[in-house]
């Protein structure tokens, strides 16, 4: 009996999860992708790891300029 009940409970959880997922509203992949691309394109120019820094001084992790005494 316990086994049956736990099976029922497990199955109910699975079905309920699927019911929730089936209720999710979906948009076409093409539209979703356009939005991702748009988001990225608008921010790419400020992405320091992509385009670097406007000047090396702006990089907090730059190597300290060492004064070489010759």
């Amino acid at each position: 009996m316990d086994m049956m009940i736990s099976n029922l409970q497990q199955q109910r959880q699975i079905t309920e999860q699927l019911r929730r997922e089936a209720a999710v509203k979906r948009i076409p992949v093409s539209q979703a992708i356009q939005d991702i691309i748009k988001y990225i394109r608008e921010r790419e120019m400020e992405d320091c790891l992509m385009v670097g820094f406007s000047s090396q001084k702006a990089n907090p992790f730059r190597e300290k300029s060492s004064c070489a005494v010759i």
Partner: protein
Amino acid sequence: MKDCKSYSVAPPLADIALRNIWNLDMALDVNTRTETVELLSREADCLKHKLEEERKKLNDVTLANVAERLEEVTFLNIKPRRLLKGNQAKMLCCDWSPDKRHIVSSSQDGKLLIWDAFTSAKEQTVTMPTTWVMACAYSPSGNLVACGGLDNKVTVFNISNPEEDPSAKKKTVGTHTNFMSCCLFPNSDQQILTGSGDATAALWDVESGQMLQSFHGHTGDIMSIDLSPSEIGNTFISGSCDKMLLLWDMRTGQSVQSFEGHLSDINSVKYHPSGDAVASGSDDSTCRMYDLRADKEVAVYSKESILFGVNSIDFSVSGRILFGGYTDYTINAWDSLKCERVSLLYGHENRVTSIKLSPDGTALASASWDASLRVWA
């Protein structure tokens, strides 16, 4: 990290208590409603079929095809800038302070270290009464750090006063029934979200130590969680050894969406900065991206030459670059749109366990089993 996954424990007590309540509830149901396993499983099959059809119908293009016309990401200007050397113990996790300057790290010997990433100096050391501290995280104020691991607990230290021993102000906030693999402060210093080898995630109140919500749904160890970047921030994602990525509603405790595709354990999950997509890294040596609104996997990041697992991932600030820390000692940088590798960061001499973008996106920190942290910028 893998070594920890095999640690097994008895079923959580809370689970047993819950099951007993359900049993009663079920017994009533059996009499009053005709909800049978057969009926439920038939409905589940129908729903699965319907979901599959729907996803197929909306799958009109592929990301790599659409992105073909975009300009390529040329050579990334990222160099190794700092080497932070630890105490010969494997580094397992790292996190940036909101001040964009300090980093917290946790390691296999139970040490929690606070670093000044600008000067490479160790500023504070906390010794935990456990080994394998698998997770550490800064709070939004920068005053607290949370950590835990094989002790099954999440412990909070106040590090705001460098003159004071952080251990003096230590607080155990929550306890799982298996190792704690990941933690973060969602939006404030008052709450902590944790993921665990007991297959659950939990939201805790820092002050009282009370569990505010628990999240049941995974059937394997949870290895990673990430909070939605949207301002409301009421959803989070989790990745698990059951190969699933789940999206949760923090208020109700229910999982809202699920994504599958990986062929092995998911080690790391991360929201795209737009908040509309999520990514994962897995032992199957691939990273993947899923769009939440299309409810579908949209990209796979893999190469034939990459054979080892992905332990940790993070996006660059625009979301164009997806970084992955791999077991083969490398960090791969992927063009998230064209699905091509654009750069390979060499430096670490053992597996890369954790990578994190700094809060302003100017640098990437990485932790490794070679007992060091590196900062790339």
